[in-house]
């Protein structure tokens, strides 16, 4: 049906312009005469077509004047800057200087290429969350008050990065060039995965989202798979746990997902991410399970939901909030 309509529309316009062939003429006239609805449609088309003619711009353009104006903005602009430079540098003695400068440039260019030197980039976020893409295609999300140091172009054997603070890494796969992150005394090496590293107050926590990550400190090394977490503090043996929730993603996604999550875990997350001071009064309350998703909601709304869900009271005492029966 739609294809037919398109065909009719095309023919109607062709007819209005006068470009229909003999057979097309017959075809469209038959269609118009077929019923009242078709006649009306044709009249409407004709009306739009006729009316549009009124929108014609009748003032002729002054091309010569316009060209003069354009010339000033383009050709003449180039020429004036060109001539003054050329005038100076075409003096004979300058040509020798120019030639020797060129030679020096060539030599240093080749020298630099050989030593694989590359600019070092420091990426520091102050109060914001920053996202950056590295030269290999890896994407790094840097949390507030964190810093990354890496070369503009990675060398041939590995991709090395230094981290202070917290960042989420989405590493582009490259079997031949492991991605290595140095954070405090810990080395995290991966091939192509996504994971979060948080380093604060001497403790380094790594959570893997996809893929496999190898973590080393001076004493031990461990391998983490998806949904596993390890916390390194000083020179100890490494161990891993399964993650209980995905709150670690909050700074990136601004979403808190609770899936049978104990209330005390949610409260810790709220304290950390919203800079709040919430205490749970009774131990039984702490273990209450919650399933909910909070998307960019202010803390007051979240507290109201908690109050209603668990029939509890959130009592404010200055900055401190106490949750009780």
């Amino acid at each position: 049906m739609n294809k037919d309509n398109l065909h009719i529309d095309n023919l109607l316009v062709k007819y209005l312009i006068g470009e229909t062939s003999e057979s097309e003429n017959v075809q469209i006239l038959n269609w118009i005469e077929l019923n009242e609805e078709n006649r009306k449609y044709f009249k409407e088309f004709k009306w739009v077509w006729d009316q549009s003619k009124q929108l014609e711009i009748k003032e002729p353009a002054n091309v010569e004047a316009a060209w003069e104006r354009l010339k000033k903005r383009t050709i003449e602009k180039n020429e004036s800057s060109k001539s003054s430079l050329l005038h100076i540098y075409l003096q004979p003695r300058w040509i020798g200087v120019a030639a020797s400068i060129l030679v020096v440039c060539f030599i240093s260019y080749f020298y630099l290429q050989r030593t694989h030197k590359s600019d070092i980039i420091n990426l520091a976020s102050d109060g914001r969350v920053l996202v950056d893409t590295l030269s290999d295609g890896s994407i790094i999300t840097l949390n507030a008050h964190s810093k990354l140091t890496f070369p503009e172009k990675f060398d041939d054997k590995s991709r090395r990065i230094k981290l202070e603070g917290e960042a989420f890494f989405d590493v582009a796969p490259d079997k031949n060039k492991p991605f290595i992150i140095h954070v405090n005394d810990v080395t995290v090496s991966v091939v192509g995965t996504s994971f979060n590293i948080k380093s604060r107050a001497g403790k380094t926590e790594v959570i893997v989202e996809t893929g496999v990550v190898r973590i080393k400190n001076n004493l031990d090394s461990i391998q983490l798979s998806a949904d596993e977490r390890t916390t390194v503090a000083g020179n100890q043996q490494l161990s891993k746990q399964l993650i209980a929730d995905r709150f670690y993603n909050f700074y990136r996604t601004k979403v808190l997902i609770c899936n049978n999550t104990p209330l005390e875990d949610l409260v810790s997350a709220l304290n950390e991410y919203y800079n709040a001071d919430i205490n749970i009064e009774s131990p039984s309350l702490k273990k209450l399970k919650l399933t909910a998703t909070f998307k960019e909601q202010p803390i007051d709304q979240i507290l109201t939901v908690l109050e209603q869900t668990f029939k509890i009271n959130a009592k404010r005492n200055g900055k401190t909030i106490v949750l009780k029966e």
Partner: protein
Amino acid sequence: MLALKAPVITNWNKSLIFGSKLQHLQVENESNLINLLINGDENAFESIFKEYFPGLQAYASSFLHDADLAEEGVQNVFCRVWDRRRQLKTGGSIKSFLYRAVHNECQNILKHQKVRERFNVYYAGNREQSDETSSKTIIANQLKEQINDAMNQLPEQCRIVFHLSRFENLKYQQIADQMGLSVKTIENQMGKALKIMRQKLAEYLPLILILLIC
């Protein structure tokens, strides 16, 4: 589109020149112009500008309702063409490239300027009825504005094709050749243009009767 080389004049070619190959030569001329422009030939730049400026300015005016602003928009496009001449690609249609660039430039200008108020002033200047305030005129002017809006909201290629047909009075084949498109595409774009404009103006269609009766 066409792989073009400098024509070798043999006896055989000479006879073709006087036949239907004039079209071919016109396109070849255009390709030469682009090559010259890429190499910084100022005369080629001037040729292209003078050829297309009147049409482009009219096109821009239909969006901006101001001849000076329209000229500025078209000039901006040409400045960029000149600045980036070395990156120009051969083998396309100059006209298509320029109209699309002007179309986008107008969208940008519209985003940053309050153009609507100019509509009445601009069009009122063309008609003798600037002092008349009969309700029929008011309705007619508002209607005109609505039609202009409907037209300006057409998708890019559709809008350009419609303009070339309605206001440059080009035949379908001419539009097809100049834009580097097939005649079928032109037919489709024209059908689409009228269909969309009719839909957008649906609520005003009953008004036709009123205007015709008064």
